[in-house]
């Protein structure tokens, strides 16, 4: 079994692609590259490509991963050197490595870090934003009510899902925050939800539709429960 794991960037215009659109775009790029992909059986054969952690529309990433199963190896150097001829602007392969049979990428992912930009209607000092973050995180639990598919209300505590939150900078009415959150099958916290709860709790008026997210790191855990990249796992 030949599996090529690729680390890629999704930014600029490509942030507006939904996950399904990204899947189609990648498949067609691989086809243009004439990669010998392995296909599923059946009446509607699909190439075997799997993704680590689907991004919502509008979110950028500089650290996403996919696994594509191949019939024949492709030269990684060729792939990285010539990718520009095949990929649309905003998608870029950073690195690629072959590996054998592996657990699905999606099940490996445990944490991700985001850079977040918020716009508010008042200017705040960096220190005061950090104070608010600390204050927000000092709660014993951070809960909200979630309505599930059966329309049942469930109280969710996201405190255990937050790794850290820190202010990187503040300029004019923009706040830049970095946060590490749990991602994947063992709990998942969306940064949008985190910001909503933070701003609500701290009384920050966040301007609607102006918050921006960029995923900057994606991690798995090794046997010692240490964060490692998806190439290392």
């Amino acid at each position: 079994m030949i599996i090529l794991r690729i680390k890629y960037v999704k930014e600029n215009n490509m942030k507006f692609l939904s996950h399904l659109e990204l899947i189609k775009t990648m498949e067609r790029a691989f086809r243009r590259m004439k990669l010998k992909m392995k296909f599923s059986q059946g009446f509607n054969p699909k190439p075997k490509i799997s993704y680590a952690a689907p991004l919502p529309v509008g979110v950028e990433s500089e650290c996403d991963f996919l696994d594509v199963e191949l019939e024949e190896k492709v030269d990684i150097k060729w792939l990285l050197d010539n990718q520009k001829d095949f990929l649309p602007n905003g998608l870029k392969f950073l690195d690629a490595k072959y590996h054998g049979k592996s657990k699905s990428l999606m099940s490996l992912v445990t944490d991700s870090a985001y850079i977040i930009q918020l716009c508010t209607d008042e200017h705040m000092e960096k220190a005061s934003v950090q104070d608010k973050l600390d204050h927000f995180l000092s709660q014993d639990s951070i809960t909200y009510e979630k309505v599930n598919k059966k329309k049942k209300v469930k109280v969710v505590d996201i405190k255990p899902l937050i790794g850290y939150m820190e202010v990187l900078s503040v300029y004019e009415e923009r706040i830049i925050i970095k946060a590490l959150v749990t991602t994947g099958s063992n709990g998942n916290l969306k940064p949008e939800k985190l910001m909503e709860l933070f701003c609500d709790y701290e009384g920050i008026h966040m301007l609607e539709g102006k918050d921006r997210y960029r995923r900057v790191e994606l991690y798995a855990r090794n046997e010692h429960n240490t964060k490692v990249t998806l190439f290392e796992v």
Partner: protein
Amino acid sequence: MLRNKIDDVLYLVEKPSRYIGDEVNSVKKDIRQDLIRVGFCFADVYEVGMSHLGSHILYGLLNEIEDVYCERVYSPWIDMEEKMREHNIPMFTTETRTDIKELDILSFTLQYELIYTNILNILDLSNIPFKSKDRSEDDPIIMAGGSCAYNPEPIAEIVDFFSLGEGEEVLVEVMDLYREKKNNNWTKDEFLQRVAKIDGIYVPKFYDVSYKEDGTIENFGPVDEQYPKVIQKRIVEDLNNAYYPTKFIVPYTDVVHDRANVEIFRGCTRGCRFCQAGMIYRPIREKSKDVIVDTARKIIEATGFEELSLTSLSTLDHTDIKNTIFELIENNKEDYVGVSLPSLRVDDLAVEVIQEIQKIRKTGLTFAPEAGSQRMRDVINKGVTEEDLERTLSQIFNLGWSRVKLYFMIGLPTETREDLDGIDDLGNKSTWLYKQVPAERRKGSVSVTLSTAGFVPKPFSPFQWFKQNTLEEFREKQYYLKDKIKNKKVKFNYHDAETSVLEGVFARGDRRLNDVLIKAFELGCKFDGWQEHFDYEKWMQAFEACGVDPWFYTRERAYDEILPWDFIDVGVRKDFLIREYENALNAVLTGDCRDNCLGCGVNIDLIGRECW
């Protein structure tokens, strides 16, 4: 900057990838002063517009010209339009996000009549006056082409000039002339006077119309002798050597026809009497198998599409279709590129081809018997018998298909209850035929969809004189069928009758509809082709406000009446159309004109040689 302003609103709308452009194979050019900037506009949402083959051909062709930059323009969806108006964002091109008002030429492709209000909406978003006479030298010149341009009159006061027929050659001539306009600083009028003399171009402002007391046309003609009385459509003679793009734009979002399209011929010899396309695209011109196969390979290489579609008006009529399809399947099966065909005629060749195609990818099957009874199929000159239908359905069920879709029209000339019953009968026959298949070959339960659309008589078809069914008649027939179809395995679909009658009004309309259209837009009509947005009441208000009776246009026409589109010559003679209409009324089949030339006139008037 407009670019950033647009980016900001893209966070707030559904499917923003419709608006980002920058797709693989979209064309980028450096913006220079001498560039002729064209906006090619399909006035519907991106997913629909991007599925239109003709736009891709002309986009590619225009961009081959060094000093021409053709960009795409699509209608923003309702949510996007709202945001654009809220943030003062004008209508912009997909490629460079340029305000369309800054372009030299804005070209609309007219594929269905119900797109007209969207054209106005696009102009409105960039504050471009609707009527030709109200626009200044600074506004773009507005042209239009496509199948609805064969009756240009309902939008003749809006469009500066129309291009009739196939655009590959005439557009190059128009660009050459526009270059001269730029170099010589001609006014718009000076340009229009000259463009009016290019074959196949119609400039409405140089033509006058007068009406009789009963509302029919008394006189129609050029205001000045220098302009042609009759405008003949343009065609490309040799498709094997004509321009055809291979670097098709690869969309991100799911467009309606999300695949590689290879055109295999133009024209059609079947002579179905309801069919405008079968008349206006004559004569038949095929591409050779080698050209088709080579084009397909290049498109797949340049795009990475996983499906390849052979398009034409009746794909299996290509004289070398079997070899072509088999070769394409052979070339593509290793890469799992499926081959698909548009809706099929019902015959043995279809079964043979389907059998081969399913080896790669299994797709749904759609057939178009068009009418339920044999008598009615003879009226429309469909040339498909009940036995053909039975045999085909039985064969495809035996091959393992269990879902089939059948297309019909209701409201055809001479239609009776028995003809409608025939649709129900075909549904029952289908499910019965499925039951005859040995159980081990059946895949689950059978599902038959009977889909009906209200018939709209179109210019240049033999039914152009026919009185269209009224809203009430259509509804009554729909309800009748809905009640009648009891089979649980049969699904019955029908198109909204209100849109069919409005389409009928505009299809055979005249210049007096320009004001109605503008009024309807002002009342809020847009996306009329989308059932959820179509507002029949507002349209009726618009007709009333303008003092125009819509049903004047759907009435039966006399053979000696001057029809609004009579000044256009599509190559098919009126006496042929009359003969065919008479044959229809007598349910006389005339068959395929490949077997027996019916003297439509195309050979003599248009190409000066035998069609075949």
